[in-house]
């Protein structure tokens, strides 16, 4: 079989940065006397390869690409899911601008995101550093700390709901033995956010810890030995060697946590499930109503699909802004 198309002669002249690494160096001069026919094949002749990779693209197109743009179309309609659609222009967005619940949901999402991401990442880094220096039972600690991440989110949320229950929860029972009066964990607007953030911290610390641990293990021990010889203590080593080297990994986890944290939905949904008497989501005072939960309520409980679509598209713009901020931070770190 001839060489695969990627490294074939046709692809090479586009390489810009001068001669690349040795194995990609183009064979510029062809041996005299031989004529090389350019192997040009139409894209259709690669149909087998395209067919082989097609399942992903088909599923992506049907279940992701189409819904994304269909929801954009829906954001300009009024539709109850069954009847005729009615074009309403930008009306859904003007409603959105005037809707205090939408802004409340944005505030809730951002507060929960900060309250969960900060302890998650700091905790993960601390745990990873501790675990890196542990000599015995390494496997046990890793599994034990990673386990919350593979536990069903619904099970964890129900468990947290029971533990933090206002009237009969374990936490309040323990506080009661020390003489502290019951804390309204699941009805005070701030404590609701704290409980949701704790839940997310519980679930995601282990995940980030494993990533940090992998990063720590990739740092050559010779650097640490050199630092030791120069007389650096463990704290100084951590801040001046470990953290700078880990920077790209930390940025990766920040971005992943941003994406996860802003999409919080299941946690408040399970923790404050609606019931027949009160169809509202998000708990008392809607303090746990995240933007995605509000979208779900508008579209699927109130049958207002146009408004739901408008909510998620407005939220998309917000995520774009946050990603831009993240990107700026990354760039600033790389320049010097």
């Amino acid at each position, binding site marked *: *079989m001839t060489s695969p198309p990627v490294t074939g002669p046709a692809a090479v002249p586009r390489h810009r940065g001068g001669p690349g690494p040795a194995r990609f160096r183009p064979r510029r001069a062809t041996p005299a006397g031989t004529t090389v026919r350019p192997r040009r094949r139409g894209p259709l002749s690669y149909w*087998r390869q395209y*067919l*082989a990779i097609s399942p992903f693209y088909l599923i992506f197109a049907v279940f992701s690409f189409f819904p994304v743009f269909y929801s954009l179309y829906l954001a300009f309609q*009024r539709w*109850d*899911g*069954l*009847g005729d659609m009615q074009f309403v222009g930008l009306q*859904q967005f003007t*409603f959105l601008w*005037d*809707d*205090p*619940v939408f802004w409340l949901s944005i505030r809730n999402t951002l507060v929960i995101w900060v309250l969960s991401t900060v302890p998650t990442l700091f905790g993960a880094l601390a745990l990873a550093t501790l675990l890196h220096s542990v000599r015995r039972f390494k496997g046990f600690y890793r599994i034990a700390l990673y386990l919350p991440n593979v536990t069903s989110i619904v099970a964890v949320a129900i468990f947290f*709901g*029971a533990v933090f*229950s*206002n*009237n*009969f*929860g374990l936490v309040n029972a323990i506080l009661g033995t020390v003489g502290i009066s019951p804390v*309204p964990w*699941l*009805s*005070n*607007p701030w404590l609701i956010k704290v409980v949701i953030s704790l839940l997310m911290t519980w679930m995601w610390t282990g995940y980030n810890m494993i990533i940090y641990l992998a990063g720590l293990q990739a740092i050559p021990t010779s650097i640490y030995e050199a630092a030791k010889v120069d007389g650096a203590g463990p704290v100084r080593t951590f801040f001046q060697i470990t953290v700078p080297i880990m920077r790209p990994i930390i940025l990766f986890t920040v971005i992943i946590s941003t994406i996860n944290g802003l999409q919080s939905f299941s946690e408040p949904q399970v923790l*404050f*499930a609606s019931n*027949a*008497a*009160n*169809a*509202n989501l998000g*708990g*008392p*005072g*809607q*303090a746990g109503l995240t933007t995605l939960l509000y979208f779900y309520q508008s579209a*699927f*409980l*109130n*049958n*207002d699909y146009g*408004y739901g679509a408008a909510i998620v598209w407005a939220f998309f713009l917000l995520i774009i802004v946050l990603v831009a901020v993240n990107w700026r931070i990354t760039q600033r770190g790389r320049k010097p």
Partner: protein
Amino acid sequence: MDLSRRGFLQAAALTAAASGLTVACGGSGSGGTKNGKNLTLWYWGGALSDKVVAEAKTHFSSAVTLTASSIGGDFKQKLTTTLAAGGSSVPDITGIKGEDIASFLPNASRFLDLNDLGFKKLSSQYLGWKTKLAQTSDGKQIGFPIDIGPTALFYREDLFAKAGLPTDPAKVAALATTWEDYFTLGTELKKKVSGTFLVNNIGSVFSMAVGQGTERFIDKNNHFIGDQDHIRTAWTTAVRPYTLGLDAKINDNSWNAAIGKSLTTELGAAWHALDIEQAAPATKGKWRVCAMPGGPANQGGSYLALPKQCRNPEEAFKIISWILSPANDARGFTDAAIFPAAPAAYAMPAMTGPDAFFGGQKIIEVFGPAAKAIPDSYEAPADAAVMAPYMTELTNIEAKGKKPDDAWNDAVSQAKQIARRQGVS
């Protein structure tokens, strides 16, 4: 190597094509004629008596094959999606929950008019107010009533006795004929038995008080009326137990733990008895039921409907009218605690027996008259969505100590906004 890869790819392509063909054949196999032999029924766990459904299968086996599926999760959402998609996956018979029926009425064209199939002759057997809730303004009947949720006052007989209050249902009902009487009773109870509460949260009082009226948040001309006196009165009633300190403020899942302990009474529909029984089995024999203060309301209760794609409307209608005949409906009460929408069932032995959980009380004597006394009311498609901010603000009062008047103003302004969004003028 080369040959084996090509072989592999060709095999893969053939498999893909073959599976595509199979799917296509499967899709076109069951055609849409109107005398189909295979009918599907969608319901959710507890919507119908499983025994009656199983019997319906054998009863109609000579004419059609009935396949019943118990659909879990968000039933309304799944039904909406399937109806919107159309095709052969649409069930021939489907359940619709009581709280969702109003939102399906604007799309009545997606369902068959049961009056055309003979419901007119049967309708007198079912409660008029329940039938009307599944009727469009031009008289199309899309839902066949399964059950209803007449409400009553559940109370702890032992705690009433401890407080030196009457414990007999008739006497308790006489003591609590109006909401104000009920709250006076609660104040006395709290004084005598400390650490107890009269109501679990004020949202439940509000939804009961609204349900006692004939008008809700939107009138028949599609106007918002959620700021008018009837709603304001219900609101004031709901806030009373909060100001009197009779409100347990339970807005989380701790109801399960509270019901057997600190709650002296509970407002609920007939099906709520099962919730109490499951959450607090230890209180067996200690509960009683009596008429609700201010008169009965309805909470929940479902319908069966025939989507337009129904493959055999005549047989399907025969099946649902058999499953929901008063005699079979009464069996649903024994099997699944569903309270029949056919008053004739209330006199049947299946329903007149004493209930051990209620200390041998014949609870039909409370729920039967309540069912018949529920007023006709109009529920607009957007009603549930418009009601939501009132419930939110009531929990704001409980959770944050928000001033009731501020909460009322915020609730009305938000409800108006939602109404506008939903096309209500």
